[in-house]
């Protein structure tokens, strides 16, 4: 019941953030209406990083305490993180087209890093699907999620370097959208959107976690069922043999 209330609150918050972002806040002087994409874009990118952090921590806790609930947390983080990452990339491309003139800007380290991030965690989710045993799955996923988390800063650093050592034309970079000189309305709207998205994130995390627990319980039940069926068949066979004797 509490989760449901949270869901409604989150929905209302996201809707009001959208209304404020689309109609209330004035458009940016340089970028015009395209800049409005920045509010959900930055919020989802931030939450994507948070989700992958949760996945890494969940994985480590599983390896340490061997409690499958931590694995369920890790799974929820990865899946919701992938969703927010995809959303952030999509928003970035929609923003890039009018502002940069292209959907994809190879020189932007964040864009390329985020694309790799998506690939890393889609791989993580596929790995989970292809492993049946829950404990094996949790271990493999925990390790892969941990190495992915270690890889993210290296990727970011190397891509930034790649651009830095290649002095090319400087293009209006996204960080300008949020420098301290930006008017308070913009900053306030971004913070509001972030808060609304965080509520939605929390709701999704709780629901996904519950779902993961239910899936685990069902897997366990199915395994027990198979075991009972095998035992029953064995007992049946034994009694038949005895009868024949």
């Amino acid at each position: 019941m509490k989760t449901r209330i949270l869901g409604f609150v989150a929905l209302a918050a996201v809707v009001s953030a959208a209304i404020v972002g689309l109609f209330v806040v004035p458009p940016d002087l340089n970028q015009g209406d395209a800049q409005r994409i920045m509010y959900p874009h930055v919020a989802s990118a931030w939450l994507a990083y948070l989700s992958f952090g949760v996945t890494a921590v969940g994985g480590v806790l599983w390896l340490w305490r061997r409690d499958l609930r931590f694995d369920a947390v890790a799974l929820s983080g990865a899946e919701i993180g992938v969703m927010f990452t995809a959303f952030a990339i999509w928003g970035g491309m929609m923003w890039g087209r009018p502002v940069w003139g292209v959907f994809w800007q190879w020189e932007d380290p964040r864009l390329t890093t985020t694309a790799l991030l998506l690939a890393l965690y889609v791989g993580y989710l596929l790995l989970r699907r292809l492993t049946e045993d829950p404990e094996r799955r949790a271990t493999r996923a925990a390790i892969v999620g941990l190495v992915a988390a270690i890889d993210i800063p290296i990727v970011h650093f190397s891509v930034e370097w790649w651009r830095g050592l290649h002095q090319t034309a400087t293009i209006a970079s996204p960080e300008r959208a949020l420098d301290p000189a930006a008017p308070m309305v913009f900053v306030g709207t971004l913070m509001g959107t972030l808060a609304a998205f965080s509520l939605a994130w929390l709701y999704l995390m709780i629901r996904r976690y519950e779902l993961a627990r239910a899936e685990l319980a069902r897997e366990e039940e199915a395994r027990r069922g198979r075991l009972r069926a095998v035992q029953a068949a064995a007992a049946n066979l034994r009694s038949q043999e005895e009868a024949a004797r």
Partner: protein
Amino acid sequence: MNGLRTEARVAMAIARKDAVAELRGRHATVSTLFFAAVVLLLFGFALGPDARRLAEAAPGLLWLAIVFAGILAVNRLHLLETDDAALEQLALYPVARRAIYAGKALGGFAVMLVLGVVVLGAVGILFAVDIASAWLPLLSTVILGAMGIAAVGTFYAGVTVRMRAREVMLPLLVLPVLAPLLLGAVRATAAALAGDPFGELGAWLQLLVAFDLIMLMAGAATYGFLLED
């Protein structure tokens, strides 16, 4: 200190076992070398026949060929261990798990080094790049790149070796992780071939060293969990 020496001996023994198996059967090198050669030929068809464009693209093509062939090589080296439950036997030995990882990675490194040097030579011939005059920085790049691919590849081969669809899963998991290595190695190779006009070679080699060290440590710390499952 004594324990560390034992671990090094164990790692060497495992690497030697892999090397002997490789020298006798040539499971990993021959097929992957041939694969790398075919990849290079296809790159030539895809981007040629303009010789200048091929020479410009050579560093990227070199490292793509090494990375693709390298994934096949580390996979083959781990498949050796699935026969007769050899990996389970290995896991039962009373030695540190990180020594087993180090041994497998060392074996992979040896194979990757042979692969890298041969592919480098092939790129020099096929794409008319002068590799002889910059042999030392090029060799350093190949050594560091081979080490990184072996470190990451061995670790992920351990993850996928007992999985369904491992042929798809291994490259899918390894390639995004190897992105910084590919970037650093390609830039270092390009800088070395151009005579390092901007003095950036050292920085890229440092990036490769850092990548190798971080990934080796991560692999050594977590490989044991894979052997347990």
